C-alpha cells in the first residue's frame, strides 16, 4: 500500500472557520436572482418592447424579493450603541463593546461585538476576548417566547448586555411592554406583508396571462405594502430606550429606530402604487397598455387596446382575428379572408396584400414598420407583413 503512504494515521482536520456567508439569504434570493439572470441572458433575444419588459420584469422581481426579505430579515427597527459594560459574572472586567439590536417582524437579533478591554484587576492570564462577537436571533412571535429566550439566555450564559436587551423584550406588564409592542406590530405587519406577497403572486400570474389587468394587483401590492408600513408605524413602540453606560461613562440609551426593511417596504409600496396608478391611468385613457410580457400575447380579446389604433371597433376586431389567423394557421383561406374583407380597405391591410406584388410598397411598409413602436397592433401588422413577404421573396429567388 505504498501509494497511500506508509502510515495512514486517523484523519484529523483542523476546525474550519465558518466563512462570513449567509447561506439562508443566498438560497432565498436565488429564487429571485436566477430568473433575473435568466432574463438578462435572453435579453438580446427579446425583440419587442425590450425596455418595457425589462423594467416590468426587474420591478416584479425586485418587489417580490423585497417582500420576502422584509418578512425574513430582522431589520424593521434597529439600533446600536457603544457601551462600557461588565459582561460576565465572577469577574469584574469591563469592556467596551458595541451592542446592537435588530428587530424584525418575528424575530429579534441582538449583537455584541468586543471592542477593547477597559479595566480589570483579575483577568486570567492568557484569556483573549478580541474575537468575542455574538449575533443571536430570538423569536418574538409567541406571547412568552421572549421570556423563554431570556431564560435560555441566562442558562446559556449570554453576556450581560445582551441579557439586558432580552429582559426589555421579555417583560410583558403594564408599561414594560416593548417586546409586546414589537410582537404585535410584527404580527400585523407580517400579515399585511403576506397579503402584499399574495397580491404580488397574483400580479405575476396576471402579468403572465392577463397583462391588461396586472396593474390592479400591482396597485393592491403597493397599497398593502403601505398599509404594512402604517401598521408598523402605529403599533411599534415609540420609545425603546435601554440604558447603558457609554464610552464616556455617561448614560447612553440604546434606541431602536426604523430601519432598512421599513424604508424598503415603504419605497416598494410607493413604487408599486405609482406604477399601478400609472398603468391604470394609461389603460383607462388608452395611452398605453401593457399587453404583452416576454413576447406573450394571450389576452388580445380581453383588454382595451391602445388608442392610436384606428378605432373602427367591431370591424377592426374582425380583421384582427383574421390577420392573426393568417399568422398561425398559414392557410390560403385566411388570406382570402383578408383580401375580401370589406373593412380591410380602411387600414393598411390592403396595401399589405399588395406587398406581394409590388416591392416598392413593401419597402415603404417596411420603413413604416421599422419605426420603433411599442403597441401591439403595430407589432401584429409587422409580423403579418413579415409573413406575407416570405413567400414573395422565396418565389423571387
Amino acid at each position, binding site marked *: 500500500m505504498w501509494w497511500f503512504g506508509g502510515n495512514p494515521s486517523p484523519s484529523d482536520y483542523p476546525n474550519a472557520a465558518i466563512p462570513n456567508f449567509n447561506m439562508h439569504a443566498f438560497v432565498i434570493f436565488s429564487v429571485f436572482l436566477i430568473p433575473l439572470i435568466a432574463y438578462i441572458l435572453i435579453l438580446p433575444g427579446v425583440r419587442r418592447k425590450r425596455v418595457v419588459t425589462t423594467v416590468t420584469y426587474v420591478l416584479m422581481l425586485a418587489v417580490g424579493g423585497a417582500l420576502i426579505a422584509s418578512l425574513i430579515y430582522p431589520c424593521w427597527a434597529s439600533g446600536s450603541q457603544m457601551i462600557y459594560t461588565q459582561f460576565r459574572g465572577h469577574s469584574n472586567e469591563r469592556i467596551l463593546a458595541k451592542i446592537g439590536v435588530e428587530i424584525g417582524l418575528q424575530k429579534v437579533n441582538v449583537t455584541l461585538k468586543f471592542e477593547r478591554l477597559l479595566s480589570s484587576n483579575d483577568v486570567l492570564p492568557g484569556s483573549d476576548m478580541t474575537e468575542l462577537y455574538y449575533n443571536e436571533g430570538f423569536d418574538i412571535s409567541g406571547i412568552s417566547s421572549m421570556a423563554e429566550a431570556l431564560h435560555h439566555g441566562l442558562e446559556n450564559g449570554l453576556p450581560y448586555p445582551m441579557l439586558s436587551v432580552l429582559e426589555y423584550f421579555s417583560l410583558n406588564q403594564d*408599561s414594560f411592554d416593548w417586546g409586546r409592542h414589537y410582537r404585535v406590530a410584527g404580527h400585523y405587519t407580517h400579515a399585511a406583508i403576506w397579503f402584499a406577497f399574495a397580491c404580488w403572486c397574483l400580479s405575476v400570474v396576471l402579468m403572465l396571462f392577463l397583462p391588461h389587468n396586472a396593474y390592479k394587483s400591482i396597485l393592491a401590492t403597493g397599497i398593502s405594502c403601505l398599509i404594512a408600513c402604517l401598521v408598523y408605524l402605529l403599533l411599534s413602540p415609540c420609545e425603546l430606550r435601554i440604558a447603558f453606560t457609554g464610552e464616556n461613562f455617561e448614560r447612553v440609551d440604546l434606541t431602536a429606530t426604523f430601519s432598512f426593511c421599513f424604508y424598503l417596504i415603504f419605497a416598494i409600496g410607493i413604487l408599486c402604487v405609482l406604477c399601478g396608478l400609472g398603468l391604470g391611468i394609461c389603460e383607462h385613457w388608452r395611452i398605453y397598455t401593457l399587453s404583452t410580457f416576454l413576447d406573450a400575447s394571450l389576452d388580445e380579446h380581453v383588454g382595451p387596446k391602445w388608442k392610436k389604433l384606428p378605432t373602427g371597433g367591431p370591424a377592426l376586431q374582425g380583421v384582427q382575428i383574421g390577420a392573426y389567423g393568417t399568422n398561425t394557421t398559414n392557410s390560403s383561406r385566411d388570406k382570402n379572408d383578408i383580401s375580401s374583407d370589406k373593412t380591410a380597405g380602411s387600414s393598411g391591410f390592403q396595401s399589405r396584400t399588395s406587398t406581394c406584388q409590388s416591392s416598392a410598397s413593401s419597402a415603404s411598409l417596411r420603413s413604416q414598420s421599422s419605426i420603433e413602436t411599442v403597441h401591439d397592433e403595430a407589432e401584429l401588422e409587422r409580423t403579418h407583413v413579415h409573413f406575407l413577404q416570405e413567400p414573395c421573396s422565396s418565389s423571387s429567388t
Partner: protein
Amino acid sequence: IQQNEEFQRYDGWYNNLANSEWGSAGSRLHRDARSYYSDGVYSVNNSLPSARELSDILFKGESGIPNTRGCTTLLAFFSQVVAYEIMQSNGVSCPLETLKIQVPLCDNVFDKECEGKTEIPFTRAKYDKATGNGLNSPREQINERTSWIDGSFIYGTTQPWVSSLRSFKQGRLAEGVPGYPPLNNPHIPLNNPAPPQVHRLMSPDRLFMLGDSRVNENPGLLSFGLILFRWHNYNANQIHREHPDWTDEQIFQAARRLVIASMQKIIAYDFVPGLLGEDVRLSNYTKYMPHVPPGISHAFGAAAFRFPHSIVPPAMLLRKRGNKCEFRTEVGGYPALRLCQNWWNAQDIVKEYSVDEIILGMASQIAERDDNIVVEDLRDYIFGPMHFSRLDVVASSIMRGRDNGVPPYNELRRTFGLAPKTWETMNEDFYKKHTAKVEKLKELYGGNILYLDAYVGGMLEGGENGPGELFKEIIKDQFTRIRDGDRFWFENKLNGLFTDEEVQMIHSITLRDIIKATTDIDETMLQKDVFFFKEGDPCPQPFQVNTTGLEPCVPFMQSTYWTDNDTTYVFTLIGLACVPLICYGIGRYLVNRRIAIGHNSACDSLTTDFANDDCGAKGDIYGVNALEWLQEEYIRQVRIEIENTTLAVKKPRGGILRKIRFETGQKIELFHSMPNPSAMHGPFVLLSQKNNHHLVIRLSSDRDLSKFLDQIRQAASGINAEVIIKDEENSILLSQAITKERRQDRLDLFFREAYAKAFNDSELQDSETSFDSSNDDILNETISREELASAMGMKANNEFVKRMFAMTAKHNEDSLSFNEFLTVLREFVNAPQKQKLQTLFKMCDLEGKNKVLRKDLAELVKSLNQTAGVHITESVQLRLFNEVLHYAGVSNDAKYLTYDDFNALFSDIPDKQPVGLPFNRKNYQPSIGETSSLNSFAVVDRSINSSAPLTLIHKVSAFLETYRQHVFIVFCFVAINLVLFFERFWHYRYMAENRDLRRVMGAGIAITRGAAGALSFCMALILLTVCRNIITLLRETVIAQYIPFDSAIAFHKIVALFAAFWATLHTVGHCVNFYHVGTQSQEGLACLFQEAFFGSNFLPSISYWFFSTITGLTGIALVAVMCIIYVFALPCFIKRAYHAFRLTHLLNIAFYALTLLHGLPKLLDSPKFGYYVVGPIVLFVIDRIIGLMQYYKKLEIVNAEILPSDIIYIEYRRPREFKYKSGQWVTVSSPSISCTFNESHAFSIASSPQDENMKLYIKAVGPWTWKLRSELIRSLNTGSPFPLIHMKGPYGDGNQEWMDYEVAIMVGAGIGVTPYASTLVDLVQRTSSDSFHRVRCRKVYFLWVCSTHKNYEWFVDVLKNVEDQARSGILETHIFVTQTFHKFDLRTTMLYICEKHFRATNSGISMFTGLHAKNHFGRPNFKAFFQFIQSEHKEQSKIGVFSCGPVNLNESIAEGCADANRQRDAPSFAHRFETF
C-alpha cells in the same frame, strides 16, 4: 469602597458558580421536607378541615394584648419588608386554579345572614410548569424575588425596573417630591388591587414607584420602602462627595452595595434575633459556603414566616416629630390609623402625616402578643379581589401550606429533627387554658394529629417568647442558608467588596442609624433598639391599641364584574338579531318597490323623453309620449295618440302597435295611479278593452295624466260613451292589469275547464289553480274569434275558424261564451261519430244544401294545414287532398261531396276514441296498426307487481343509483363537517386545559370553536363550488365520473346552509361565552387572553370585547355581512331583486377579508382559517383568471333574426381560440345594454363546435333579453350596426356528456332545444367524418317537445340538415306537438288523417315538417318510453338521458328515470338536465 467591583445582577443569577440559577428570581422554592400532595403530584387535599373554620376556632381573639417581649410594631412591619425582600410566591398561575374555602355557617364576617353559601376564593400559586407532572417531581412553586438579601425590595429584580427608578445622575434614584420617589405615571407594573374600603379599581398613578410591586400596600411597609429609598440616595450622596470623579453608574453600584450590606446586617443580626427571641441567634459567620442552597423553603414561605401576622396590630399610632412625646389623637377622627381601612391607600397617609410620624409611632407602639391570635384587620379584613373584597390571612396561610404541599405538623417537625407532639403536648399552657378549642381542633382533624397543618401547629406552639420551636428552627435555618450561600454577602472576604474596616463599619449600622440618616427624627426620641420598646425608652405609647374606639372596617363585599354590562350586552344582542330582520325589510321594500314601479328600475332606464319623428305634423291630434307596460320584465316606449274616437298606440318612430276604438254608448273603464306617486315614476293608466288585454301605460307626469283623461272624456262625449275613472294604488293596479300573458293564462284556464267538463276528466284540470274561486269568472268569460283562433293555432281570418266560430257563437256574433263553447265541445266529444260528422258537414255546408262543395272542403283543409305549418306546396296539398278523397271513394271529378262521402272519408277513425288524446292516459292503449308513429313506444306495460316493502327498497335503490354520486359527496361533506366540529370540540373541551378557556366558558368555547372549524371548512369549500371555469375543465377529465358537477350550484346552496348553521352556532355560542368572559376577574382575563393587554386599573367590559377589539368588531361586522348576503340570496329576492342579490354577493370579498381579520389578533387561538381557505382561494383566483382570459370582448354580430315566440337569433364571429363542446353554454353581455349587476346572461350554444360562427337562440323573457330584442329590431329596421357582444365561456353542462353513452336520449322542450341544435349537428358531423371514434353513441333518440313546430322553423331546418347528413340510422327523432292535443281535437283529427296519407305517399316525410321524424300529438309518456328503451337496448348497462326545458318536463323525466331504474335487470338511466 471600591470603584469597579463585580456587578451583582438584579435577578440573582450567576451568584453561585456551580448552580448559576440559585437564588434567582423565578426559581423554584426550596423543598426541604417531603411534599404532601394528596395525589403525590399536585392536588390539594380537600379532606382537611375548612381553613376558615380553623381560623375561626384558633386564631380569633381580642386585639390589644401587648407583646410580652416588648416588640414594637416596627418589628412587625419590618418583618414584612424582610419577607418581600426574599420572597414572592403568591402570584397566580395560568390557568387559574381557584379553590373554595368553606365558610362555617353564621360566620360573623362572611356569613352574617347565616345562608351558608359563602365560599372564600383562594387561588393557587404560580409554579414551575416543568414540575407537577410526575410523582418524583411534585409541583414546585416559584419565588419571583431573589432569595438573596440583595436589595430587590428597593431596586426590583429586572434591569428595566431599575432603569425606571434611577435618575442616572450621581448614582441616585429618581425623586419626585424631594425625599419621595416619583408617582407611577409611567405605569410600571406595580400591584394595584382595588382598595377594599372603596371597592373600586383606582388609577395606578397615585402609587409610589419603588422597587417592590407590593410596597404600597400599607403605610408601615411603604414607610420602610421610602426610608430605604432615601438610604440609597444618602449613600450615593456620600460617595459622590467622597469620589466626585466617579461616574453615575459607579456611584449607583457602590451605593447599592452599601445598601445591600446594611440590609444584610440588619436582617441577619438585628431582625432575626429580635423576631425569634433572645436566645436564638444565627451562628457566627465563618465563610462563604457555595454548596449551601439559598432557596426559600416551602416551610418557611408557606408557614414559618407567616408567624409575624400574629404580632401585627389592628391600627397604627402616629407620633409627632420633635422633642415632645406627642401622639396624634386625631387620625381621620380616630386615635389610631386603622389598617383595614387603608389597604392600598398608603401613599395618602404617608403624604399627609409624613414618614417620620409613622416611623415614630411604630417605634413606640407595642405589637400584639406572639400568640395564636391574629387581629381582625388581617384575619377578617385583609384586601381581596373585586368580587370578594375581604379575605382571611390565616385561612389563606393554611391554604397556602396545602397548596405548596407543605407536610403536616409532625412530619415537618421530624424533618427538622424535633420530636413529634400530641394534641396535648403541642402547647401545654394553651391546652390548659383552651382545652375546648384544642378538642374542637382535634375533632376537626378526626383526632389524628398526623393530618394537622404545619401552620396551625406551628402557630399554636408560639407563646410568650416568639414563635415556637418549629418555626424558630425553620426561620433560623432559612436565614443561615441565605447568608452562607451568598457570594456577595458583606462579610465574605473572597468577593472583595468591602475591606475589613468597611465590614466593621457595616456591622455597626442599625436600623436606627438608617432612620436617623433618612428622616428628621430627633436622635433622642428614638430608643436604641427600635425593634423593642423597653423600660426607660423615650416616649412610650399612650395606650395599647385595640379595635375598640377605632374606625370600623368596611365589611366585605361580593360583587360581579358583570355590573354595568347588562345594557350593552342586551342591546348588542338585540342589534345583532335585528340585522337579518332589517335586511329582510330592505329586501321586501325593494321587491315591493319593483312591484309598485312595475318593472325593474335597475335595468330599464327608459324614459318618456324621446324624440318623436312625426310629432307636430298633425297639430290637431292629441299625442303624448308614454311607456307601455307589457309585463313586469318588459316595458317599451310608445306614443299614444287620440284621434276622434280612436286611441292609437304607436312606436316612437311610427308604426301602429295597437288601436282601440271607442264605440257609441260604451263604458270606458279607466284606472290610474293615485296622484302624486314618487317623482321618479309617472302615473300609470290602465285602459280596459273587452275581450282583450288591457292597455297599461305610464305617463311622465300627473299633468300629462289630466290632459290624457280630458282627451278621453272629450273623445267619449262625442259618441256618448260613459267614462269611468278610478284611482288605485300602483301595485294593485298593476296586479289587476290583464296583460297579454295573464289573458293567455285565463284563456288556457277557459279551455282546460271546458275540456275537463266535456270529457269529465279532472286530470285535465290544472290542479294548481283553484277553480272554486274563479269558476264563475270562467263561466262568464267570453272569448273573441281571434282568441279562439290563436287557441287553435290559427289565424282569425282562417276559413275554418270563421265557420267554426259562426257555428258556435249563437248569442253574440263577436264573442263566444263558455257555455256555448262547452256545448259544441260536448257534441264533438260525446256524440257518436255520426253526429260529429254531421256537425262537420254542417260546418262545411255553407249553403245548407246538404252537399259540400269540393272546393270549399279543400279550402278548409288547406287552411287547416296552413296553420299547422305544413311544409308542402299548395299543389301538393291539393293532390294530397284529392288522394285522400280518392282513397275514401270519392271520385276525382265530383264537384260536391255528399254526407256519405264524408262518412267514408272519416270512416277509419276509431269511433270512441278521439285521436290525439294523450296516449299517456291509462285506459288508452294505442292500437299498433293504426298509429304508426306511436308504435315505437307501444310496449306492454310491465307493471311491477311487488309487495310494498320491496317497492320501497326498489325506490330507495333506484334513488341511490340515480344520485349515488350526490349522496356520496353530500354524506362525505356532512361527515367532514361533523368530524371537524368534533375534533375542535374535543380539543377545546379536553386538550386545551392550559388555556383556561374551559374553566371560564365551559362547553361553550368547545362548541364555538368546533363550529368555527366546520365553518372554515364550509367557507373554503363553497368557493370551490363556484369555480365554473375549473369545473368546465374538470368535466373533461376522469374526475367527472365521480363528481356530479351539474349539481355544483345545488351543492353551493347546501354548503351555504351548513355555513349559516355553523355561523349561527358560533355567534350564539360566543354571545354566551362573552357573558362568561364578562364575569371574569382581572387575573382570570389575564390568563384567558394573554394576547390582550390591560392596565392594572382597567377591567374590560362587554363593550370593550364587542367594540374595541378587532375580533369583536369584525365578529359583529361578519354577522351583519353574512345576514345581508344570506337574506338577499333568498329565492324570493333573487327572483325579484336580482341586482340586490348580485350586489350583496359581492360582499363575500368583505366576508372573507373580515374572517381573516377576525382571527388575526390571536385572541383565543392562532388563526387557522387561512390554512383552510388558502387552497380554495388560489383555485378561485385561478378560476377568475381563466374567466378573464376567456372573456371575449366586442364580438361582432354578423346575423340576427327575430323569430316567432319572442325568439331572437344571433350569429356572431367566433373568437379564434374559443373552443367548446356541443352542449356547453356561454354568458353573453353587451356594452350597449346596460343593466346594473345583471349584465351577464347564460345561453346554450346552438352552433356546433365545427361551425365558423357562434349562434345563439335567445328567448325574450327578462328585461335584458327584451332589450336585446328591441335593439336588434331597431338595427334590422334602420340598418344601424348591431350591438357588440361580450362573451364569457364556455361553461360545461351535463348535456356535453352525450357522447359518453352508447345510447343517448335527448329531450328538448321549447327553447330548450338550442343545445341540441349544436349537439345533433355535432353528432352528425362526427359520425359522418373520421372523428367518429370519439363518440360512443350507437343510437341517439331525440325527443322534441313543442307546442307547435311552427314557431321553431329554424330548428326544423336544423333537423332537416341533420337528417340529410345522418347515415346509418344512428339518430331517431320524435316530435311531440303538444298544442294540438289540448286545444281542439277535431282539427287534430283532420291533420292526422292528412299526415297519415302524406307520409304513406311521400316516403315517410311529414307534411308538417318535411322530416322523417315521427310526429306525435300530445305529451310524451316518459315511463312508457323508458320501458320501451329498456326492452330495446337490453344489452346496455347505462343509458344517458339529457334534457333541457322547463322544470315540470325535467321533473317528469326524472320521475320516469327513477321509475325505470327500479327495474334492476334492465339498463339504468342517468339523467342530466338543464332547467330554464
